[in-house]
């Protein structure tokens, strides 16, 4: 089965959107841009799903009694669901992004992941990243990051 010309173009468009979106997620450093890239990729995936059941010679799936071939309605219903889910997740993501900006004052993914790593290590009372193993039986010194861990306080 060979697809008609506009079908191929549309498929290429859908795949293109997905590729653009994924490239954006990987390349972008700003959290907001990454989210936008995600939205683009989602649009591509949705388009692909619509195309899966689309036929150019057919009419919209509404029963009119004309006996014409109809477009497959199932993917369209599914895409509707997927769009709603997508919007919900985007709203959640935006609110999280706002909270992150309030907490760290930046949306740069590189800075964020470094600060996050630091915060987790500080919270656990270990020095971030790799450091020399402490000699066995010796109590660890307070980490150079100036963490006030419980052990550090009474050493």
């Amino acid at each position, binding site marked *: 089965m060979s697809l008609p010309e506009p079908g191929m173009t549309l498929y290429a468009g859908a795949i293109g959107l997905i590729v653009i979106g994924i490239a954006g997620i990987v390349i972008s450093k700003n959290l907001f841009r990454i989210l936008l890239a995600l939205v683009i990729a989602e649009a*591509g*995936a949705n388009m*692909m799903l619509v195309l*899966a059941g689309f036929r150019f010679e057919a009419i919209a799936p509404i029963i009119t009694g004309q006996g014409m071939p109809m477009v497959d309605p199932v993917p369209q219903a599914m895409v509707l669901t997927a769009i709603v889910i997508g919007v919900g*997740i985007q709203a959640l993501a935006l609110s999280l992004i706002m*909270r992150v900006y309030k*907490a760290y004052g930046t949306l740069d993914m590189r800075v964020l992941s470094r600060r996050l790593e630091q*915060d987790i290590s500080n919270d656990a009372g270990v020095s971030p990243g790799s450091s020399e193993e402490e000699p066995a039986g010796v109590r*660890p010194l307070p980490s150079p990051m100036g963490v006030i861990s419980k*052990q550090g306080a009474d050493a």
Partner: protein
Amino acid sequence: MNPAEMNPQDMHQIVLTVVLPLLAAFLLPVFGRISMTFTRYLGPIVLLIGLLSTYVVWGEMTQPYMIAIGGFAPPTGIVFYIDQLSLLFTALVLLMSLLLWPYHRDTSVREYSLSLLLAGAACGLALSGDLFNIYVFYELASVASFGLVAAIASGAAYAAAIRYLIISGFGSVLALTGIALVYTQTGTLNLAQLALLAPEQLSNITGITAFLLILLGVGVKAELFPVNTWVPEVYATAKKRVSALLAGLVSKLAVLVLVRLLVLVFQTEQALQIMLLLGVLGVISGELAAWRAKDMSRMLAYSSIGQLGMVFIAFSIPGEAGLYAGIAVALHHLLVKPALFLLAERWGKSLEGLRGAARVSPGGAMLFVLFALSLVGVPPLPGFWAKLLVVMGLISQGAAMYSVALAVILIATVIEANYFFRLAITLYAKTEAGEKTGEETEPKAHARLDIATSALFGAALIAAVVFIVPLGQQLKDTASQAANVKTYISTVFPTDGR
């Protein structure tokens, strides 16, 4: 379904396990304004009702059956497929949600809501027999878990949650594309119909691509190798009960979805090879990172990646043996990892700081050693038998890839033993006079609850040692039922298979 043997009223109540938690989750914020006491008890009550109906269905079920939701017959309608495997996981979802429920009094209503949402969506994942329905439940579980991770309301938790959300969203796009590919090839998303059509229409390059996309997409939750960067951040920042739920339960449900797809739809050699490869990489990266970790939360997070890698390796063994081994390893991890996370609630700090912690809480330390021994695979604990099944399965396969996986699993066991025993020795280390032990403060009330819950898991583990033979037989039955594609098809399409 065979109405002559089973009472349909009883059998249909399994739908309650999905409907009631979801309904309660949406109504809870309203109830919270009326009566806080009622709100506090509603969640556990709903979960108990769900457990009860699962129990009733379990008792009456003689063979797999399906429920056409809303009375629309498949493939037009959406079906729930109920066999021993899905019922087992439904029961586990409800039980674990109940055990890991946020019981302390300062929990907000939203957190109750999200926990119920997660439980309902997870039950839906276990029961659903329709690919798109699975996608919807998967997204629902995702949203609930983002909310639960962020519920601790610290900057780090927000950052971890948004990074988790982005990776998860990326995964959803891949999964949705995969689903679209499946639909282009077959024109259906009903798993039974897909199982019928798959041998001729999905055993080509498009089918493999679709599987890879869905594997990577759903694999985000299952901590699959390249898409698991969220794991250490989230488990270190979220509440430990949430980490326990995500590591123990949600990851296993994602695995369950993948296994259903693998058995029914993508039963090809290449699909198994891909899963084996990613599993091996997961084991290597996870165990090595866990060995280097300096705090307990992240050590457990990385070791969980390694364990999930082993689950994937187990499921990539073709045939019933693989399913049996995979289910055994997954169940064992589901039992042990949440308990370890509960212990980490008190001990989440640096590993060095835990010197002599055993003297302050001997019970906790004993439990830790028990779980660690089982996770490493010391006989006669259940972890040993689960690992043995995987090893036996791998030995019986001739291909070179499987031998590599075998070597990796054995080496990983050594690494695992090293870091767990290192921590156990630290726990029992002698402290010098006047020196304070890892924890000086009296355990808080909910810390005691955590130890109690984790002791319950320990008791279950020891009970499993005693009943290992009937348990193994039961799991074997479950696996062989799940591996039977013909039953699945004839159950959903009783007349002619179309």
